[in-house]
């Protein structure tokens, strides 16, 4: 993450080296005025050179394709969910730096997938898992059962592992957002879009994979469709839909949207526990 911090440290160094607080204030007001008037001529590089280090603080760093690839290879790993079907469908698992959404009607297995992924990631010592439970679906007993099943090959040595959060699960984000979305006014959508931006910023800057669940609502013609509406569709990186046949323990998962897989691909997997 060193290259991301460089421009900021340069900017703070230049500010602190000035020493005199009034000179910094006059510089800041001068640059605010130039921004307002928008009269900065492109040949006026002398004035802009003074303002430029400060402006680097106001936007994200400039990157190119090579730096993006390096960051992706070094920091953005795939976290396997433990269900082989889902992992193969996603090309490795949940990707760090991306927001993944699981959509399904009630009792289609969303919470089960979340709990099992949490147990699997924690068991393989990829990092710390944070589970935000908004609908009272978390059960410590189920997690303990799953961890017992997974670590049956316990070798006896406790690896220290990482203390960094690598997976953030929010079960279910739709129960937080649907009460705000209805009704007149656009505040609900504002909150939803802002939440999406914050989650994606968290995911990218701290190399966390964010997994959220969503429920289904009735659409036109009685067909079920994902909740949260049209504006939410362009927020997650990956959208998966789960369906569960009654009485069997086989779940069907299909891709609604993915960054590099074709949508519409489906696979089946077996739900344990």
């Amino acid at each position: 993450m060193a290259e991301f911090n460089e421009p900021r440290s340069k900017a703070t160094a230049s500010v602190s080296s000035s020493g005199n607080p009034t000179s910094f204030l006059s510089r800041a007001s001068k640059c605010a005025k130039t921004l307002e008037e928008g009269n900065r001529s492109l040949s006026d590089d002398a004035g802009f050179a003074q303002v430029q280090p400060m402006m680097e603080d106001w936007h994200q760093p400039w990157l190119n394709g090579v730096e993006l690839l390096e960051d992706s290879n070094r920091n953005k790993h795939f976290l396997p969910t433990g269900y082989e079907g889902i992992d193969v469908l996603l090309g490795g698992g949940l990707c760090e730096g991306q927001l993944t959404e699981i959509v399904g009607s009630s009792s289609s297995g969303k919470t089960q997938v979340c709990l099992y992924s949490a147990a699997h990631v924690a068991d393989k010592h990829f990092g710390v898992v944070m589970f935000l439970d908004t609908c009272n679906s978390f059960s410590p007993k189920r997690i303990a059962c799953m961890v017992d099943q997974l670590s049956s090959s316990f070798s006896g040595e406790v690896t220290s592992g990482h203390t960094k959060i690598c997976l953030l699960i929010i079960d279910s984000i739709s129960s937080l957002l649907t009460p705000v979305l209805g009704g007149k006014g656009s505040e609900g959508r504002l909150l939803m879009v802002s939440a999406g931006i914050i989650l994606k910023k968290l995911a990218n800057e701290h190399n966390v994979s964010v997994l959220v669940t969503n429920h289904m609502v009735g659409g036109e013609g009685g067909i079920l469709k994902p909740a949260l509406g049209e504006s939410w569709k362009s927020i997650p990186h990956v959208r998966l839909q789960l369906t569960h046949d009654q009485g069997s323990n086989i779940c069907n998962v299909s891709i609604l949207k993915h960054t590099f897989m074709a949508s519409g691909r489906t696979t089946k997997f077996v739900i344990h526990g």
Partner: protein
Amino acid sequence: MEENPRGWIHGDETAKAMLARVLTERPFLFLPPLHRVPLRVGNVVEIAGPSPSAKSQILLHAAVHCILPEEWKGIRFGGLERMVMYFDLDCRFDVLRLSQILKHRIMEAYKSANSTYWEDNGEYQKYDATEITQMCFCDDELFLACMRRFLYIRCYSSFEFLAALKAMHFHLQRESEALGVGLHFLMIDSIGAFYWIDRACQPMPIGGSKRKNLSLQNVAEAVVQEICKLLQTQPVLVLATKATIFGAGTSGNDAQRAFGKWCSERKMDSRTLSKEGEKLLYREYMPSAWQSFVTHRVRLQALDEIISDGQYGTLPTYTSQWVQPPLNIKDKFAVRDDGIFLIT
């Protein structure tokens, strides 16, 4: 210094020479699936469609076409060898997808070059697939040179977007000096990403009425102003995607419910829209400053049909239709590993 007044009257070049120069320096581009209308630098194209309709895939396909060189070590790639500037306002860009498309295009060019070479020589010898892969992955140099021409920045708010636009020319100057090529594309992924946030900003009357208040109109005007400034010194082709927002501009879910009722009354599949339905879905919500800045408009839609491609399995299909200039033709296309694939 002697001044030659006659030199002022005599022209610098003939019209024919000027046309020839401009058409080579600023060629017309035909990017699939937008190939029906030739695009030049200075055009501003808005690609609108519901999610998902392959809007970002069109941008990536065009970006790869731009960063590939015309020719490399005797193999023809047919690219522009210029830089691309990508503003990621949606924050959903995946660099693995870009590198996937680029690698496939490089491999295809190698394959076709090798097959023509052997046919010319009178012998026909098929290269082993692994040998071709090895050959072109040894060419890391080409891959890295292309990736270096792709410039990227994410923006988490309109304020960051404006700051980046203002600081862009300084950064571009540095990069073109380092790489020796100019900029050809300016891509904005999802110009409407901050619509709901900017719309809800109340204009704050701060003491001192000279400060501009932050509002949806002002943000759009500032964005258009900055891009115009860039177009004056460095002509680029602007491609912007726009996600459709159902019922934008109306209160809450009223429009959505009305549309839903209307659809169920006519027992229609939500994908087969008639003119009224299209008006609701593709309803214009961007401020007038942006609307008058756009010179070309395309609409995308996802279809329910899938095609099966031998190598890639089943693929979903999409249609694209030019709205400005208005053409009554819908082109069908699908998205493969190597980019956009037109279905005739």
